[in-house]
């Protein structure tokens, strides 16, 4: 089959590889009909997530048709149309029992590796480095889905297109959990850094959960426009306005009730600190660049919540922890417990509250994955979201 393989920073190739096989009783093989490139794939593309290896198959946002089932999967049939959540979860462990699926204790075969780097291991994730399992991903024609009796959600409504339900695999639930983590009270003001796809869904979800205002921060006009026109945010271009000062002015000096960092470890920034972070990351003296996280902490109102759906991999420095401690802030984060949100968010799509396909700007064949990565990374052709079809 064809698959998108990682071969080092800025080097992905669509190659012919063997077809996946059932390896365990609870596995399924999915023939992929739609697959997407995620903003977090760009951290792999740029080479900032450790333990990627030559030849790893990328991709964790995919859906398709069940073509093969292990003997242990009883709730699915050959031919079922499913969306596959990006974290792999067993459904039996302590954390799965609490619906904290991305903390599954059993799905990461390389738990020892994550334990060395992070103290404890989270769940396995498709196509996202050997630290989280080294599972072959879904930017391919076929994928093996472990614990298929727990993860995939069956899409029975044939009136829904792939594009409407594909993002249940990651970015819609990720934006939604980011908003849910803000503990939004009616008419709260929420600030969202980053108007990529996760940022867009975080904005939309914050309104769904009762926010009165959402202020969206980015520098790319097309992304700010999408935030204004598609999901109703007020927007702030940080190249034109001082973010801390503007957020204070917009909230009577108090600051937003909650702040969402939908950017993560490769945040871009200006000035001395921007250069400092870039140099330190390039020299591998810090693994992640944290200007957005710093700014979100400084901006948040006293006693407010900073919610972090953006991905971080290792270590950061110059964290304003004094601000965080003295002002009683709460931080909430985590890889998304996607399985928990599939049904309720599918309901919201079915009853017309949201059509997630609004974020898609580019559609292409799987063979053009390298081009997709390139324009998405470099924000060329106003690229916001790439969907590929094998």
């Amino acid at each position, binding site marked *: 089959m064809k698959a998108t393989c990682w071969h080092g920073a800025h080097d992905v190739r669509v190659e012919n590889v063997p*077809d996946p096989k059932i390896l365990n009783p609870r596995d399924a093989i999915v023939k992929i009909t739609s697959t997407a490139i995620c903003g977090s794939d760009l951290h792999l593309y740029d080479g900032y997530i450790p333990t990627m290896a030559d030849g790893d198959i990328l991709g964790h946002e995919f859906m398709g048709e069940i073509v093969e089932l292990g003997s242990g999967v009883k709730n699915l049939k050959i031919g079922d149309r499913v969306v596959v959540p990006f974290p792999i979860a067993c459904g*039996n462990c302590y954390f799965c*029992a609490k619906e904290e699926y991305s903390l599954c204790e059993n799905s990461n075969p390389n738990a*020892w590796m994550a334990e060395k780097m992070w103290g404890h291991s989270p769940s396995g994730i498709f196509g996202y480095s050997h630290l989280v399992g080294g599972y072959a991903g879904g930017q391919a024609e076929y994928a093996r889905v472990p614990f298929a009796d727990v993860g995939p959600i069956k899409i029975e409504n044939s009136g829904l297109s792939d594009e409407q339900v594909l993002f249940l695999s990651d970015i819609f639930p990720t934006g939604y959990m980011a908003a849910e983590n803000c503990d939004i009270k009616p008419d709260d003001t929420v600030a969202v850094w980053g108007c990529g796809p996760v940022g867009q869904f975080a904005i939309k979800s914050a309104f769904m959960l009762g926010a009165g205002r959402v202020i969206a921060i980015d520098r790319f006009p097309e992304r700010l426009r999408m935030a204004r026109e598609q999901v109703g945010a007020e927007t702030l271009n940080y190249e034109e306005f001082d973010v801390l000062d503007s957020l204070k002015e917009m909230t009577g000096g108090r600051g937003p009730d909650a702040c969402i960092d939908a950017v993560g470890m490769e945040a871009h920034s200006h000035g001395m600190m921007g250069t400092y972070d870039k140099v330190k990351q390039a020299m591998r003296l810090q693994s992640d660049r944290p200007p957005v996280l710093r700014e979100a902490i400084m901006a948040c109102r006293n006693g407010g919540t900073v919610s972090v759906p953006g991905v971080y991999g290792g270590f950061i420095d110059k964290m304003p922890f004094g601000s965080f401690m003295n002002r009683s802030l709460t931080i909430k984060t985590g890889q998304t417990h996607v399985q928990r949100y599939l049904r309720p968010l599918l309901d919201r799509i079915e009853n017309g509250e949201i059509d997630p396909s609004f974020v898609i700007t580019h559609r292409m064949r799987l063979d053009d994955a390298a081009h997709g990565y390139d324009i998405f990374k470099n924000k060329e052709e106003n690229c916001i979201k790439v969907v590929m079809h094998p």
Partner: protein
Amino acid sequence: MQAARPSTAPANQRSQTMRADVLPPPRRKTDTALPLARGLGWFSIGLGLAELVAPRQLARFIGVTDNTTLIQAMGVREIAAGIGILTQRRPTAWVWARVGGDALDLSLLAAAARQPGSDNTRIAVAAAAVAGVTALDLACSQQLARANWASADSENEGRINVQKTMAVNRPAQELYAYWHNFENLPNFMKHLKSVTTTDARTSHWVAKGPAGSSVEWDAEVTEDRPNELIAWRSTNGDVENSGVVRFVPEPAGRGTIVRVEMKYTPPAGVVGAMVAKLFGEEPEQQVQEDLRRFKRFMETGEIPTIEGQPAGPRGSLYKLLKKGDPA
């Protein structure tokens, strides 16, 4: 409500005492020599770099005639020892390597002093400095060696003690029952080839040895408390070993804590184990991974894997990444 209390309190207390009795005490940091070893490791790397990068200046500084290649070779040796010390959890052998290196340095300095054109005052100062470091190296390696012995069985020198726990989200009865059928053990203990039950209390074990060989022994159950504990010891064979596995129920919803304690004498004694450790074979990590597979199998019915999945062409780095895998 009032009446219910007296009956629940003793039950709570009982489970509390049981957990405290059976869970291992926190591990004390016994290796007081480690910080010193780390310091020596960095010293090695610093000195090694100086020798490698600026051999000529260094030669002048310590007063010997210029021998660039020799000094650079010494630099490589220093760096190797430094890396060895800093990367190993028990760097004893590498600190001993430093002691050997010190002796070599001293003899080279003595040889240099006899050569014409050497500055003997400077050489004497350098020799005094090396002697000082040698004393530190000696003290450190002896402390480390003592720490190694202490973590082996104090009464039976040469035995290795391993202790690991793992929380498993299944009832104790179920875990005990699976473990009690010893023929199941190779399903999750990667180094076992087979276990054959010979009668109610005895069994024959075959494990993977080095280079495709196998090691075998007979074992007997020494204590068997249903749903609580199984203890065993070897009666004869290649590897003398004994151990106990306990199944300790946790409060509601938290499953069972499985605790394994094992003692064994590796085939080549303590030296064999030290050599094994030097090359990354950590018995503790092995037991941890065995327990993890047990947990995963008991909770999910399978052991997650990526062996056999597709990938693009692999480079040489992939082998390096897999090398650290204790499983």
